[in-house]
């Protein structure tokens, strides 16, 4: 648009700035050591960097190739104030000094321009160089140009540079002159210091004279600070350029918007005026036609009246003539005719003659109805009523449990002051007409509707309105709120070292699409705060793979069309050992499970006589309870604290072990049974009703049980003394569960979620 040309211009100017840099390098490059001098090369900043690094890359090599040729040109065509007859030996020295200056200038030449205060430095050191137009220089530059016509000469570059610079910074071109670089140095002494007060380099020997009272720093230090200053300013400049570009872009956008808006308004006016003119023309037509018709009707009526009037007149005349004729007749005839005549006359006179004028000649008062035109006229300054907005379908993840974000759009030509968003819940079964409707006024084309019921479908529609009126309603769109968070059944969590089985309740009345389990590994510095997710779980439980011996915080979310629910309350899972809860549904009525869920008590009182309900869930004969072990085919270890004198059976069984049989009496269970008979402990390792003959000299108080699916083994240990008691080899074609039984009153305390002791790993 209007700024279009500006950017290229700016870019070109900067390329030229670079070109000028290159030219300076070229000058300095006359002496071989200059190439080694790092100062000019270290000066990496180039305004082109900000725009187009290619420009710089392209230009620099070009300058380098030119170096050799330009220097002789400089030396030979030098017409300036330098002593022409200078000895050749001085030349090198001069060049060296130039280099020194440039080393300074490498950082400082721009700085001279940018930092106002440093301009005088150039003045002091090289007043001669302050030639207003640097005419002499330009001459030799031109010489160089002539020698190499394709290249950018100093003069041309300088002019463009000045323009560019002025353009970019609004500075006077004169200021620019300050960094015309001195091409020779009269002094033959290189020892320079920097006078801070005069802001100029001075010979060390001069310090005492002119700068005696002044603050003096070494030149290198001054150089450093000057460089820093320049770099700082470069950054500022850089920032400013970026800002300006952004501002230009912004202006461009505004320009377009203004153009569009006014264009639209013009169209609007045009269509309105056309409409009004059309309406007026139509009204004119109608009126003219109506007037014509009325005129015709009136004339016709008058004409008819005139005709009948004439007829009446004729009849009257005829009657008069007849009567006159009668008067001339004989008496007898007269009498005869007179009677008849009198009748006829009487009849005639009886018929009224209408002398009322049927049509009024004057123009009836015809008020014209211009109200619609007036309305149109009135509406010219406003806008047309909007058309129906288009309501969007629900966007993914735009709903929460109590809110949905509804979006719609309008036709771009419409002007809308506000929208009326209406909704009502949709319920299956009922037609929904009796559901309450809610309407709200919204300014935007979206609305987060709050206070909704979770996991529920709502019907939304929207109308747009402005001063001119209200649009028809949009189509109706269905939106669904996100579900309520599920509720994790913390009492049913099972875990082992490799996995956890999490169960939860939906927390929603309506079905949800799926669930997501999120887990965060705590206490692990490298993974702190990282949340893993298992998504798309269709059921209300999930087996998640975990790392051993860690602590996890686990959440569940429910997912529906409306999006994910909030997180459920967290549960903590420790993947140390295997962890299970006892299954209440299997518990024999004679057993009580303690509050903490891990102590099984058989009390002294007799078990209830009432027969438990049939079924194969609950133990009916053997007073036992089963645990819910996680279905993972790894290794599981748990311990049972027992009373040495109690009669207990501990082991594992398939879930469908016959509950009316004793544990170990069938081939679906493997158990260790302890009995105490006449102070003799008897230990049996029962499977299918048989046991090996094993005698144990120390009664275990804590029995360790190792279930090893990998090796199809079930081992029992005296956990306190790490003693191996017995190992079953068992074919575990299904998952088994821990089981615990007490034949006589007593109690068993289950310890799980404990890491496997090392000694059991040998079995």
């Amino acid at each position: 648009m209007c700024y279009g040309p500006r950017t290229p211009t700016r870019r070109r100017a900067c390329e030229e700035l670079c070109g000028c840099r290159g030219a300076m390098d070229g000058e300095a490059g006359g002496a071989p050591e200059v190439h080694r001098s790092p100062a000019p090369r270290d000066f990496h900043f180039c305004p082109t960097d900000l725009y187009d690094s290619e420009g710089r890359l392209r230009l620099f090599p070009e300058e380098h190739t030119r170096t050799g040729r330009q220097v002789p040109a400089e030396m030979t065509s030098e017409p300036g104030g330098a002593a022409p007859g200078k000895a050749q030996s001085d030349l090198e020295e001069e060049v060296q000094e130039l280099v020194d200056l440039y080393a300074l200038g490498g950082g400082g030449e721009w700085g001279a321009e940018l930092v106002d205060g440093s301009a005088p430095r150039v003045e002091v050191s090289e007043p001669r160089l302050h030639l207003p137009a640097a005419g002499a220089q330009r001459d030799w530059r031109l010489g160089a140009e002539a020698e190499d016509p394709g290249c950018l000469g100093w003069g041309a570059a300088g002019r463009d540079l000045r323009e560019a610079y002025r353009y970019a910074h609004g500075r006077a071109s004169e200021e620019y002159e300050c960094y015309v670089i001195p091409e020779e140095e009269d002094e033959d002494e290189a020892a320079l210091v920097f006078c801070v007060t005069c802001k100029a380099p001075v010979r060390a020997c001069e310090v005492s004279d002119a700068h005696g009272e002044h603050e003096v720093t070494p030149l290198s230090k001054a150089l450093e600070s000057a460089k820093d200053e320049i770099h700082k300013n470069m950054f500022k400049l850089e920032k400013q350029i970026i800002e300006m570009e952004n501002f230009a872009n912004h202006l461009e956008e505004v320009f377009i918007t203004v153009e569009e808006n006014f264009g639209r308004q013009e169209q609007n006016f045009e269509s309105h005026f056309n409409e009004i003119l059309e309406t007026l023309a139509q009204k004119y037509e109608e009126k003219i036609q109506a007037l014509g018709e009325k005129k015709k009707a009136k004339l016709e009526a008058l004409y008819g009246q005139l005709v009948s009037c004439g007829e009446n007149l004729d009849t009257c005349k005829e009657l008069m003539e007849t009567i006159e004729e009668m008067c001339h007749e004989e008496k007898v005839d007269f009498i005869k005719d007179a009677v008849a005549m009198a009748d006829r006359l009487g009849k005639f006179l009886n018929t009224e003659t209408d002398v009322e004028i049927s049509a009024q000649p004057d123009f009836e008062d015809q008020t014209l109805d211009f109200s619609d035109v007036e309305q149109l006229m009135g509406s010219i300054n406003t806008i047309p009523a909007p058309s129906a907005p288009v309501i969007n379908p629900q966007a993914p993840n735009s709903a929460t449990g109590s809110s949905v974000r509804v979006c719609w759009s309008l036709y771009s030509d419409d002007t809308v002051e506000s929208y009326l968003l209406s909704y009502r819940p949709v319920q299956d079964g009922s037609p929904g007409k009796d559901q309450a409707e809610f309407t709200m006024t919204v300014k935007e084309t979206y609305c987060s509707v709050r206070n909704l019921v979770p996991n529920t479908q709502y019907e939304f529609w929207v109308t747009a309105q402005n001063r001119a009126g209200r649009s028809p309603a949009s189509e109706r769109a269905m939106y669904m709120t996100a579900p309520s968070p599920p509720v994790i059944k913390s009492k049913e969590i099972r875990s082992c070292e490799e996995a956890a089985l999490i169960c939860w309740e939906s927390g929603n009345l309506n079905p949800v699409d799926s669930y997501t389990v999120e887990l965060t590994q705590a206490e692990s510095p490298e993974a702190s705060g990282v949340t893993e997710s298992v998504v798309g779980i269709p059921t209300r439980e999930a087996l998640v793979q975990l790392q051993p011996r860690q602590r996890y915080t686990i959440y569940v979310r429910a997912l529906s069309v409306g999006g994910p629910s909030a997180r459920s309350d967290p549960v903590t899972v420790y993947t140390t050992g295997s962890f299970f809860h006892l299954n209440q549904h299997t518990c024999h009525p004679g057993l009580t499970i303690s509050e903490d869920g891990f102590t099984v008590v058989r009390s002294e009182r007799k078990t209830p006589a009432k027969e438990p309900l049939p079924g194969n869930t609950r133990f009916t004969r053997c007073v036992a309870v089963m645990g819910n072990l996680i279905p993972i085919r790894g290794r599981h270890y748990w311990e049972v604290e027992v009373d040495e004198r109690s009669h207990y059976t501990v082991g594992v069984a398939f879930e469908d072990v016959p509950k009316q049989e004793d544990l170990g009496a069938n081939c679906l269970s493997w158990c260790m049974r302890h009995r105490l008979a006449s102070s003799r402990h008897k230990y049996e390792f029962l499977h299918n009703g048989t046991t090996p003959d094993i005698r144990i000299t120390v009664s275990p108080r804590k029995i360790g049980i190792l279930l090893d699916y990998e090796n199809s083994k079930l081992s029992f240990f005296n956990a306190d003394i790490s003693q191996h008691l017995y190992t079953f080899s068992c074919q575990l074609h299904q998952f088994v569960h821990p089981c615990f039984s007490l034949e006589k009153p007593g109690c068993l305390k289950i310890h799980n979620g404990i890491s496997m002791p090392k000694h059991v790993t040998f079995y």
Partner: protein
Amino acid sequence: MALKQISSNKCFGGLQKVFEHDSVELNCKMKFAIYLPPKAETGKCPALYWLSGLTCTEQNFISKSGYHQAASEHGLVVIAPDTSPRGCNIKGEDESWDFGTGAGFYVDATEDPWKTNYRMYSYVTEELPKLINANFPVDPQRMSIFGHSMGGHGALICALKNPGKYKSVSAFAPICNPVLCPWGKKAFSGYLGTDQNKWKAYDATHLVKSYPGSQLDILIDQGKDDQFLSDGQLLPDNFIAACTEKKVPVVFRLQEGYDHSYYFIATFITDHIRHHAKYLNA
């Protein structure tokens, strides 16, 4: 103490060797078998001593029990000495199979003419371990002992007489109460004389009663159809009763249908090696 290698055979990645040496305790040349598991090539391994039963040499165990695989896997050096001094030219040493040659009973004899040579207790508990520790890559801190029949008796008394010396002990059909069985009575009276109080120092059942209670996990397998069990030579019940009373942990497994042979040993040798490995490799 020069060792003379008699044989060396590769077995389950390791080497089954037999050496001969001049025993100081026994005043004769003695052979012993040693299995070096693959692990012994790179580091020191625990040592497990096997004591054989009556009539056996170092050969029976290494050729019949099939222990090598388990020892190889658990990285145990297994040493199997002979059961008695040999060729000492003591009158009557070869007269019966249950006394003299092949029946040293793992005691230090006090009676003539046996007391010079028949010092099997000192040999297996002192001389042999020193020899092994000095010549083979074994960890002197980790040793265990097991045996069969007379060797089971030997293993039990070695462990019970030296609390803490052996990490674990196990036995196949051990002579548990020799002072009360015919074999024991014959041997002990011959080697130790008539003072039965001296016998008790080599009787596992008696030793348990005075055992100071250092943690010792004892595994015993016994064939139910062992004729020596029914003959009253082994008397495990006495030992179990003593252990129960003293709360010394024993798992005693009466194995249905098994006899006293190496077939029985071979069946359960893996359990025993694992039992020792559990304590030696803990």
